[in-house]
């Protein structure tokens, strides 16, 4: 990570030569007692490197389930999940944890900062999983906080920060290991309209200026508009959305077809 390009190699929205995410025929079934509850069935999805994809859909449609599968937080009942060239559905839990630490930045709805730690120590948490020197960790934390515009607030604890600032710290934490993929689960779901817009501006800048591939789950059509592409998930099927919110093209019909 260089000083000039601290979050990674710059690549704009157009860089789409190689798939960052390749989900093939994935299904995920939960169990309520003994009753199987299928949430995703034979679903496929392809995201190119440098893409900013918004995933919409009604509650319970499986948006977060799909995001969790792609982020390596959950395992599919069937099918394949290949992210950055790694078939992560085959990884053991221990290896999957290591893979997440190196390859995925998480942005949560409620920022999920550790309340007892200052902003800069929160940002540094993922670096504890690396072998970087203390000096290098310090440098990366400084850069990440600079990117999100919170260099002056590093010593503050989460409760001393506004909701938007907390979310910015969460984004700095997601960036600090320089992952290629950012997964954002309702990143503006807990914020007011103005603050949401600021967070979305930041995500767009990370995608445009730092080449981060971003997968964002959202209920908010305004948020989805900021992405380069929006998919709608309902009844286990993905459909491409226009920016006016209309569902234009079924993107997964029949099984095995990839977007």
């Amino acid at each position, binding site marked *: 990570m260089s000083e000039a390009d601290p979050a990674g190699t710059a690549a704009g929205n157009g860089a789409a030569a190689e798939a960052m995410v390749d989900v093939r025929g994935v299904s995920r079934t939960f169990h309520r007692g003994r009753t199987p509850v299928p949430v995703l069935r034979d679903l496929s999805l392809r995201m190119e490197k440098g893409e900013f994809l918004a995933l919409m859909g009604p509650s319970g449609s499986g948006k977060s389930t799909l995001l969790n599968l792609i982020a390596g*937080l959950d395992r599919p009942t069937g099918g394949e999940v290949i992210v950055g060239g790694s078939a992560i559905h085959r990884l053991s839990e*221990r290896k999957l944890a290591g893979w997440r*630490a190196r390859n995925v930045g*998480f942005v949560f709805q*409620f920022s999920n900062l550790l*309340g007892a730690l200052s902003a800069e120590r929160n940002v540094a948490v993922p670096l504890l*999983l690396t072998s970087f020197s203390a000096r290098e960790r310090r440098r990366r934390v400084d850069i990440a906080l600079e990117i999100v515009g919170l260099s002056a607030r590093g010593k503050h604890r989460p409760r001393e920060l506004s909701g938007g600032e907390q979310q910015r710290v969460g984004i700095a*934490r997601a960036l600090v290991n320089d992952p290629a993929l950012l997964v954002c689960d309702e990143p503006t779901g807990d914020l007011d309209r103005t603050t949401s817009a600021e967070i979305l501006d930041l995500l767009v800048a990370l995608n445009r200026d730092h080449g981060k591939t971003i997968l964002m789950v959202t209920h908010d059509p305004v948020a989805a508009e900021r992405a380069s592409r929006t998919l709608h998930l309902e009844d286990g099927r993905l459909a491409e959305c226009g920016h006016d919110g209309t569902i234009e093209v079924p993107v997964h019909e029949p099984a095995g077809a990839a977007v």
Partner: protein
Amino acid sequence: MRLGSFIRQCQAVTRYNLETIWERRAVSVVAIFGIAGVVGVMVAVLSMAAGFRAVVTGQARDDVAVVLRSGATGASDSILNHQDIQVLWEAPGVARGPDGPLVSPELFVIIDRKKIGAGTDANVPLRGVEAAGFALREQFEIVEGRNFEPGRNEVIVGDGAAGAFEGLQVGDRIDVGRASWEVVGRFTTGGGVAESEIWTDNRILQQMYQRGNSWNVALVRLRDAEAFEGFEAALTDDPRVSLGAQRQTTHMAAQSEPIEVFISVVGWIIVVMMSAGAVFAALNTMYAAVSSRSREIATLRALGFSRLPVVVSVMIESLVFGLIGAAAGGAASWFLFDGFRAATINWASFSQVAFAFQVTPELLVQGTTLALVIGAIGGFLPAVGAARRSVVGALREQ
């Protein structure tokens, strides 16, 4: 997982857990108090046994033999006659002082005295001694008044007895039967059971109790500890007498054992019951601690932290509670009980022994070990539960 990464993860999660203890202080204090209570009671009860043991066995020596009638278990059921003592004078391995062999025949009777504070009657040993008895007890010292004069109805009182029983101060008189004895001095022997006794002249005591020329026990100083085997064999092989000899250390350890075992067993029963309560308190605390941080733990795991550091960190937190509880309980029992004076009956002699509770380093180590065991048990299930929790499910919690 590489060791370096594992250690860093453990450090990070543990540090975070410990930094947030203050925010969870109310529930944490419950666990710490529970553990402190167990450790405090354990250390206090066992310090009683330790104090008793120290008094009974503290001044015992390997080069002193205790001689009783063969088959007797203590002074109260033993009788020695003049011939027995003569055999002891001539026995091999016996050390000699300026006045002859260091053999101290002693008469041992029990008198009633009231316990200070309780007001109840208690058995106090009254021992008849003579010159060799003082020579044998090198640390004997009069700390108040003077020694008794042979041939007079005078007694001296051990420091422990003077503090534990009524009417044993210098100047007091002790009326036993038709006899009246004056307390003329108070003595110490550098600790030991002798300080719980009253001493007088052997001859006077024999007359008062119509014992003729007999005693109950003889203490014999040997040239060295190795001389004991030869001394004992000589007594056993001598057809003129029927005597048994034990090293003083062995004899006194056997004397202290019954009460020591009793105190320890009762103490441990109490401790085990309290420990069960403390384990539940620790479990409750750690479940609450883990529950309040389930989303944070899930966040760490989402970021790439493994299960094991989570387990280790929760266990460490619980063990820290154990250590704090051990320190609090140990300190409380030390402040409250170390040196606390008490007297209890020595079942081996049916007489009272005054002693002070002793909070020893060994007891504090035992207390700390117990606290860590409680902490480990209390932390294990919550730790495993935290690690097994679904990351996705915990992240959804608000």
